């Protein structure tokens, strides 16, 4: 694909904004609409935009596919790991109250960690899926 100046300039301007918005949605999800699922999808949309404008090889240089596979598993491990930690601290599985000194503090920490795990897994899986589809096309 031959480079298109307008697309390049607009994409370079938009991609950082999309990533900041994804982080806002991720960490402000407790107070406004948002959370791990939305943030993961928005984050992967930013990288997909990059791949569409600058080419697949450039995008795979930013996040190589073996790191994506590790990230996808890492998110799920964080989620399940929080459950195991609460078990070890004497609570029920995924009962965050035991994580902090008070119930509110524990719940807050637990929800933050779990949403982080969800966000990482969803973003990585969406990128894996997109790279698989796009990579199939090249010979």
């Amino acid at each position, binding site marked *: 694909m031959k480079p298109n100046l307008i697309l390049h300039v607009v994409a370079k301007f938009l991609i950082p904004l999309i990533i900041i918005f994804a982080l806002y*949605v991720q960490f402000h*999800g*407790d*107070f*406004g*609409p*948002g*959370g*791990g*699922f*939305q943030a993961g*999808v*928005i984050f*992967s*949309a930013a990288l*997909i935009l990059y791949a*569409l404008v600058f080419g697949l090889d450039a995008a795979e240089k930013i996040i190589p596919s073996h790191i994506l*596979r590790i990230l*996808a*598993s890492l*998110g*799920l491990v964080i*989620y*399940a790991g929080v*459950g195991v930690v609460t078990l070890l601290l004497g609570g029920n*599985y*995924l009962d*965050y109250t035991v994580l902090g000194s008070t*119930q*509110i503090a524990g*719940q*807050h920490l*637990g*929800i933050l960690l*779990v*949403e982080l*795990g*969800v966000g990482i*897994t*969803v973003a*990585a*899986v*969406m990128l*894996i*899926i*997109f790279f*698989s*589809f*796009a*990579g*199939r*096309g090249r*010979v």
Partner: protein
Amino acid sequence: MIDIIINITLLAFLAITSVAIVRMTNLFAIVMLFGIFSLLSAGLFVVMDAPDVAFTEAAVGAGISTVLMLATLALTRNRQKNPYKEAPHAHRPWLPLFVVGITGAVLVYGTWDIPRFGDPNSPAQTHVARYYLENALPETGVPNVVTAVLASYRGFDTLGEVAVVFTAGVAVLLLIGGRRPKQTLKQKDEGEQDET
């Protein structure tokens, strides 16, 4: 009142778009229309007071799934004329229409007993939802009840959902992740040789 008018208009647009999707035969146009369909539904979710869902639908439906379908179209198009044209269908539409009509009529009959749209005293509003709305803030300190229910009250459910997303990603990698193997197109004559 204005809510209801927007609601009715958007739903009518959705119905029209879906009919257009069925009637069209150009797959490229169908995929673009499906993106519009998703965007309309995101707007409708906002009208129905579900901003979290609208967020997700706008990012997923109008963004990622459209890109994925376009990628699939590029990989599966015909090399000859009309690369994105759907083949004309050989069957008559009467049997599917009959089945769909009967099913739809039964479902509409079922709506006679459903509490009306927006009824604050319907069974769906009076059981566990009331508990979540009253206790989520004091128990978890999170004002967004959707996040509290998602991550805390129904954390086990969400763990399962994340596992499903992960599994789907692994399955896609297994199916089309690697390089394309040498052409093993199943030819017509090859199939006939198998027969003999």
